[in-house]
C-alpha cells in the first residue's frame, strides 16, 4: 500500500513564526505536491516537485517555500506565518507519467492554526 505521511495532524503557531510541514512517501514517486484546502475553494496547489531539488510554483506560492533534498521527502516552509495561512495542508505524491496519467496519493493532512 502506498503510504504518504505528514509530520503533524494539528499544529498551532503564532504569527511571525517559521513553520515547517514535512511529508514523506514510501513509493519512490517522482512527483510530490503541496495543497491547501479551504471551504468553498477546493484544493489549491502551492508548489510541486518532479525530482530532487526541482520545484515549480503552483497557483498560490506567495508566503511559502519548499525543499526537496531526498526523493521521499518534501517540506513546506512558511517563512513568517500569518493568520491567513490558517488552513488544512495536504501533501500528495504520484509517479511521473505523461499525458496526465498519474493518480495522486494523499497524506492525512495537517490542520494549521496561526494565532
Amino acid at each position, binding site marked *: 500500500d502506498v503510504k*504518504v505521511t505528514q509530520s503533524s495532524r494539528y499544529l498551532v503557531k503564532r504569527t511571525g513564526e517559521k513553520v515547517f510541514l514535512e511529508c514523506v512517501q514510501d513509493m519512490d514517486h517522482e512527483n510530490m*505536491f503541496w*495543497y491547501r484546502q479551504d471551504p*468553498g*475553494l*477546493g*484544493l*489549491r*496547489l502551492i508548489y*510541486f516537485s*518532479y525530482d530532487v531539488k526541482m520545484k*515549480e510554483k*503552483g*497557483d498560490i506560492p506567495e508566503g511559502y517555500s519548499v525543499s526537496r533534498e531526498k526523493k521521499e521527502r518534501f517540506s513546506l516552509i512558511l517563512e513568517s506565518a500569518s493568520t491567513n495561512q490558517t488552513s488544512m495542508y*495536504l501533501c500528495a505524491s504520484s509517479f511521473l507519467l505523461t*499525458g*496526465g*496519467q*498519474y*493518480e*495522486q*496519493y*494523499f*497524506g*492525512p*493532512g495537517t490542520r494549521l492554526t496561526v494565532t
Partner: protein
Amino acid sequence: QQPVQSPQAVILREGEDAVINCSSSKALYSVHWYRQKHGEAPVFLMILLKGGEQKGHEKISASFNEKKQQSSLYLTASQLSYSGTYFCGTDRGNQFYFGTGTSLTVIP
C-alpha cells in the same frame, strides 16, 4: 484557472441518483475525479484521458466532453458510503488544478 463544479452541495436519499458537473474555461486534457470523506484524505476514483471517454467504478461513472471542456460524474442508486466531497481535477502542462468541490450527503 480552477475548474468550477456544480452543484456546490447536494443532499440525497439512499437509492437516489446524482450528477456532479465540472467545467473549465480552458482546455481540458484529462479529468481526474477524487472523493474525500469527512476527516480523511482525498482518494482517487478515476481518470478520463480522451474526449468521449466514459468510465465506471462500481455505481459511479463519469464522462468527458473535450469540446465543451466539461466532465460529469454520475452516482446511481446512491449509498450512505457515497457521502463526501467530490473533486474534479485537471492537469495543464506542469500544473494541476482541482475544482471547487461538491459536498454530497446521502441520508437514510
